């Protein structure tokens, strides 16, 4: 019976929960980010402008949270989608998860590195 395939899967509550938590973080931080970066500064985005904004510690924190939450949410979301289609078995799902974690951490590092010169 194919139903038995399911029995190899365990857990999932954390990824589900963090998807929600990051979503809530995202909606708050994204609103701030969009308003400050895009609405208020439309057409005037340049490095000076961004630097000025990021000099504000609060807004920097927002961007860092945004980065972390965004990456987690995006990649976990991607994982959820992919697990519906091909990554159904336990082994495939596990491989996918590991790969995505690596990609995620890499992006996180890269993104922080990218933000660094603005902040310092």
């Amino acid at each position: 019976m194919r139903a038995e395939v399911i029995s190899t899967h365990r857990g999932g509550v954390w990824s589900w929960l963090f998807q929600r938590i990051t979503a809530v973080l995202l909606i708050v931080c994204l609103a701030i980010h969009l308003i400050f970066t895009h609405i208020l500064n439309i057409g005037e985005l340049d490095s000076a402008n961004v630097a000025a904004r990021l000099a504000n510690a609060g807004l920097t924190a927002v961007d860092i949270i945004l980065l972390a939450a965004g990456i987690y949410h995006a990649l976990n979301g991607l994982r959820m989608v992919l697990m519906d289609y091909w990554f159904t078995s336990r082994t495939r799902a596990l491989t996918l998860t590991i790969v995505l974690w690596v990609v995620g951490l890499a992006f996180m590092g890269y993104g922080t590195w990218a933000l660094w010169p603005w902040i310092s």
Partner: protein
Amino acid sequence: MSAKPRETANVGAGLWKATGMWAWLLFRISGLILVLYLGAHIIVTSMGQFDKFDGLMEFFDKPVMVLLDLALVVAVLYHALNGVRIILMDFGVGIQRHKVVFWSAMAVVVICFAIFAWVAFTYIITGEGVTS
């Protein structure tokens, strides 16, 4: 017979006519678009490291790009508000009347989008931001 013509069994909407189905499909698509965008966004932002940032920004300030930006805003808004609906349902809110909640969320999408569009078109037409 005293029988009044009456709606019988639950005559659900059927597969491709159901609101929830489209809501989910669009949600999934918008999510994927956002994933791609996020990747691009991080890379673009990192250009600050290579002193290409301002050049890129000028490129993005072109009206065409602003229109594309608007499309992105739709995706974000849709995803965000439908996401809120989903989180509400996770708390057990609105499961009985998910369609009502969905359309309310869509109304918020439209309102937010109108604001964004106003800002954007002001810029496209006048070349200036609303705040400046």
